[in-house]
Structures are given as structure tokens and as C-alpha cells.
């Protein structure tokens, strides 16, 4: 990320993509900064994949323009864009070995064979697959195929690398390992990475910034911390992590306004019913309806006056399962810091 360019890597200007009546992407504006690791996060059908496909050139906007480092690429075919994609199913060519798969882009560009071999070796080194050049994709594990797909895209030195649910097909352990590795590779090559995911944890772990998609629009763009700590809407609060949404009477009692706010479960402190409210905190009385012991932490379901259930999470630092389970049915006082709530609109 040395000396980032001031021109955005990708800019969307009022981009829409309609499929018949369905507005998959609806008048979207977006800027991706040069050299960043950018996540498009959202549920399926939220338009994130369509956006990725429009950047790659597999799909064209119904209206609006897409700029790649200032150049309008909206109507350019994929083979004329300096953008490469890592596909969800990896899309490795089954009739070619790993080396030929990785060298594909160079072969198309008629790069001499010697240089091709040299660069393939470099790439295999980068993705830690030394000595795999002659294997067929069918002989590789999911994680190895993923690496080949990454090498095949990166060998072309694209201006922007697109990743479509890159880790979706891997099991949890491998996924966590690849998250770290992808991030490291991105730092090393310094290319702008844009990846699509529906996994909020993955987005938070890897990205510099996240755009949260919902129904063809972006609900919020920000750093993982901003998205998590200050969700701009009820949707973001609910989609990224778990959140308690409080509205109406109860909200009014806490904040003085009946505007809905969100509070994260781990920000709520569970106190005894006769505990005094510390300075700068707000509090609510409630009854513990349910206790779920989860080893590392315990999740409580607390019903507060007004009939709203709040989820509270506390780490089991000093408590045992016996302790926490005995709380069920007891009256408690919940308090949290005033700054820890986010207004999320009506």
C-alpha cells in the first residue's frame, strides 16, 4: 500500500442493473480506494455479486457508469479490463494442469514460454504450492484449488482483484487460515482486492472497509469497527453481529426519544436488581428468561419492562456453568454505557 493513488480504484456512478422487474442493483454510488481490501457484504440477492460481475465485465449496467482508475469501463468486455476474478467454484480448467491453468493469462498474451514458467514458479511460491505445477485440478483439495485460482488471477498483475465468495466452499478451520493468508498476500502484492461475502465475520476479519448491501442498495460503508460499533440502520445492526433493537416506550425511557436504537449484547452488563447505576450508564430492570451456557461465554435472554427481550452476553471469567444457570428466573438490572447505543432510525 505504498503511495496510494488519489484516483479511486473503482467508482460507481448511479449504477443500476435490472433483471426484468427486479432491481438487482439500484442507483448505486461507490468508491473503492486504491490498494484497499474492500468487502461487499450482504445476504443473497442483495446485489453484491451483480456489482462484482459488473466490475469484471460479465454483466453490464442497465444505467450508470463504472470507472476503473478513472477509465469508463462500463461497456468494455472482460478481456479488455485489467481486472481478474477468483471464482466461487474456482473455475479451474479441468483439461489443463495447475501450471497451465496459472499460465493461462500469459499464454493468451503470448508471453514467451521461458518467462511464463518463471512467473508460474513465482506464483506457486506465493501461494505455497511449490511442486504442484503438473497436477490436474481434480487431484487437488478445495484449499489448494482456491490457491491455484488466486495464483491464476494474480499472475496477470491486475489493477483490481475480484473475489466471489472466495472461502465459501472451505471448511471452518481452512477458512480461518485462508483469511489470514489472503490478507497477507494482498499486503505483499499491494493490489486492490474486492471480495463478496455473506459472512460478516469474514468481512470483519479481512477487510479495510466494508459495504453492507441490502436490496440493491448500500446501507453503510465504513471500517469494520465503524460498521460494528455504529451501525447506520437496523438492517446493518442485525446483519453484522447480533444486536438488540429497542424502540417505542422502552427506548423513550432510556434515551428520551422513541427512535429505535441498537445495543450490542456484549456491551450490556448484567447486575443484581439492587445495584446502583454507575455514572454515565443507563439501566433497565428485567427478569432472566433463559440462560444458554456456551463455554467461553454465556448468553442470557432478559425480558425488560415493556415486554422486549434483550440478549446479553457475558464471558465466563469467574463464573461456572452452575453459577450462571442458577440465575434463570431471577430479577436483574441491566446497564450499559450511554455511548454504546446507536440510533438506527425510525
Amino acid at each position, binding site marked *: 500500500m505504498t503511495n496510494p493513488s488519489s484516483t479511486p480504484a473503482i467508482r460507481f456512478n448511479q449504477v443500476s442493473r435490472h433483471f426484468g422487474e427486479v432491481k438487482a442493483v439500484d442507483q448505486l454510488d461507490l468508491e473503492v480506494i486504491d490498494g484497499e481490501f474492500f468487502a461487499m457484504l450482504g445476504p443473497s440477492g442483495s446485489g453484491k455479486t451483480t456489482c462484482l460481475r459488473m466490475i*469484471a*465485465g*460479465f454483466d453490464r449496467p442497465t444505467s450508470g457508469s463504472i470507472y476503473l482508475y478513472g477509465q469508463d469501463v462500463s461497456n468494455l*468486455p*472482460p*478481456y479488455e479490463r485489467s*481486472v*481478474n*476474478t477468483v*471464482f*466461487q*467454484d474456482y*473455475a479451474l*480448467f*479441468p*483439461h489443463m494442469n495447475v501450471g497451465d491453468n496459472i499460465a*493461462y*493469462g500469459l499464454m*493468451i*498474451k503470448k508471453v514467451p514460454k521461458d518467462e511464463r514458467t518463471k512467473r508460474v514458479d513465482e506464483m506457486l511460491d506465493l501461494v505455497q504450492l511449490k511442486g504442484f505445477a503438473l497436477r490436474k485440478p481434480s487431484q487437488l483439495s478445495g484449499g489448494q484449488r482456491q490457491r491455484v485460482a488466486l495464483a*491464476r*488471477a494474480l499472475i*496477470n498483475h491486475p489493477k483490481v482483484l475480484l473475489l466471489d465468495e472466495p472461502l465459501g466452499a472451505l471448511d471452518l478451520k481452512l477458512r480461518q487460515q485462508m483469511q489470514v493468508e489472503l490478507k497477507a498476500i494482498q499486503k505483499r502484492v499491494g493490489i486492490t482486492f474486492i471480495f463478496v461475502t455473506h459472512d460478516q465475520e469474514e468481512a470483519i476479519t479481512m477487510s479495510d472497509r466494508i459495504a453492507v448491501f441490502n436490496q440493491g442498495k448500500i446501507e453503510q460503508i465504513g471500517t469494520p469497527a465503524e460498521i460494528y460499533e455504529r451501525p447506520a440502520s437496523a438492517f446493518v445492526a442485525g446483519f453484522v453481529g447480533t444486536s438488540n433493537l429497542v424502540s417505542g416506550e422502552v427506548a423513550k425511557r432510556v434515551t428520551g426519544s422513541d427512535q429505535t436504537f441498537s445495543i450490542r449484547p456484549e456491551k450490556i452488563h448484567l447486575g443484581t436488581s439492587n445495584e446502583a447505576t454507575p455514572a454515565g450508564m443507563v439501566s433497565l430492570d428485567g427478569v432472566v428468561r433463559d440462560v444458554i451456557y456456551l463455554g467461553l461465554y454465556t448468553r442470557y435472554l432478559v425480558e425488560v419492562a415493556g415486554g422486549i427481550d434483550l440478549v446479553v452476553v457475558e464471558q465466563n471469567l469467574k463464573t461456572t456453568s452452575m453459577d450462571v444457570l442458577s440465575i434463570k428466573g431471577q430479577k436483574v438490572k441491566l446497564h450499559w454505557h450511554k455511548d454504546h447505543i446507536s440510533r438506527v432510525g425510525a
Partner: protein
Amino acid sequence: MLTRLSTYFYQRPRLVLFLFLAPPLLYLLVVYLGSLFLLLINSFYSIDDFTGLIIREFTLKTYAQIFEPANREIFARTASMAFVVTIASAIISFPLAYYIAKYASPRLKTWLLIGVTIPLWSSYLVRVYSWKLILAQEGILSWFIRLFGLEGVLQWLLSFEGIGGSSLALSPIGMFIVFVYIWLPYMIIPVQTALERVPNSLIEASGDLGAKPLQTFRTVILPMAFPGVIAGSIFTFSLTLGDFIIPLAIGNSKFFIGQAVYSYQGTAGNIPLAAAMTMGPVVIMIIYLLIARRLGAFDAL
């Protein structure tokens, strides 16, 4: 009772396997391979030139007859026809198969596939004789050709020694047209099936990596659809090799393998020579399949 029977079979999986496999195996061995074997045996017999009776003694005399110039010519003629029909079928099928596999909506796909197979529902003989009328001197095709003022081109084509004739219906060109028409579905379906199995993401990946559509076709689509083309070509090639109706109805009086077999075993009563000539296409097809395997056509099956 039924439960006891089920349990009896459950405990004897080998018996179940035997019962299931016996009928098809019996059919395959006795009816199918058995008759081929009889054919093979007959091809090693010979015929007495004076009495016309079959001499049931092992000899290679009959096979030697195949290599007489007249018969050799029949083989060469049939094989080259099968070859050009196969090439033409592959070229014509590909765009349609590609459209059906990759672009047509599910509804249109159903209709197109029905359209491709519908000719197979009607009698093959009727279709061949219809083509005889279509290709005739005063037929509808000639009428169209005259309409566009292209009779010069037609005359020029028909003037070629070997493939021409007095009219399309009486020329090898006409025969070629009918062969391609009749066998086309057998090529379209396997090619379409093969293309169906090429994931769209592979085609997109190729474009993404800088390949223009024509390069993608050459480096990704064609290699991956190749097993389908080979499967289709096995049909078009072998069916053309053995056919005797089309050469009978269309084209000139020069024999194809099928016709030769037909006349040897019929009017001439020379069963050994007919059998030997039938072994010709069998051997050619075995060689063809070996080459196809060498080219990796069956790797993806």
C-alpha cells in the same frame, strides 16, 4: 411370507445381483455377440464358384476378395462419405448445440430439443424418399436455386467428376446432403450434452483472463466439448458406414458397403463375402474408437 422372501434375498446379495444381471447378459452374449460371432465364422468360409454352395472350411480366400480393386473402391467410397458427413455434421451441429446448451431459456430449450428429435419419430424411409423428391431435377430445391439465379453454381458443382451427376438426387452431393440431414440429431444431442457440462464460470474465467471469444472457443470450449463431438461422430460415422437405403435411393449406381452386403447375401447368395464385407465396418469402427481413446475422448466420460 413376503418379508421372509425379502430377508432371504437380503442375506444373499450375490444371488440378487445374478438374477438382475442374467437376462441382459444372456441377451448381450447370445443375441448380440453370438450373431456377430456367427458373422465372423461365416466370413472365413468360401463359396464354390461352380455350384454356388458354401464350403464350410476355414479359408482367407473371401477376405482376399475384399481387396480386389472393385471392393476396395467400395470401402474407400463409403469411408470417405462417412468422413465428410461426420465433419459436416459436427460443424453444423456445434452452433445449434451451443445455443441450446448456453443461451436458450428452459422453455425454448425444450422446444428446440423436441425440434431436433422430431424427425426421428417418423419413418426413416419416408424421409429419405421425401429428399429424393426435394433433390429431384424438378424438385423444390432446384426451384429455389433457380429463384435465386444460382443454377450456374449448381451446374458447376454437378459437373465435378466423382461427386456430380445429372441432378442432385442422382449425385453423391445429394447423398451427402441426405446423410447429414438424417444423422444430424445423433450429433447435436451428444454435443449439446457435453456443452451443458461446461460450467459457465469456465467460459467467464477464460474471458476474465484476457481471452477473446474465439480464443476461449479454441482453448476451453472445444477441448471440453470434444468427447461429445467424438460420441456424436461415432454415430454419424458408423451409421453412414453401414447404411444401404440412402445410397440405394439417392445418388448414382456406384455401390456403398451396405448395398454390396445387401446384394451379396441376397441375389448373389454369397453369404461368406457379405459377412466378410460386414466385418469391414466393424474393424474400421474398432480402429476409430481406439484413435478416439488415444485422443482422450473418453477421459471425461
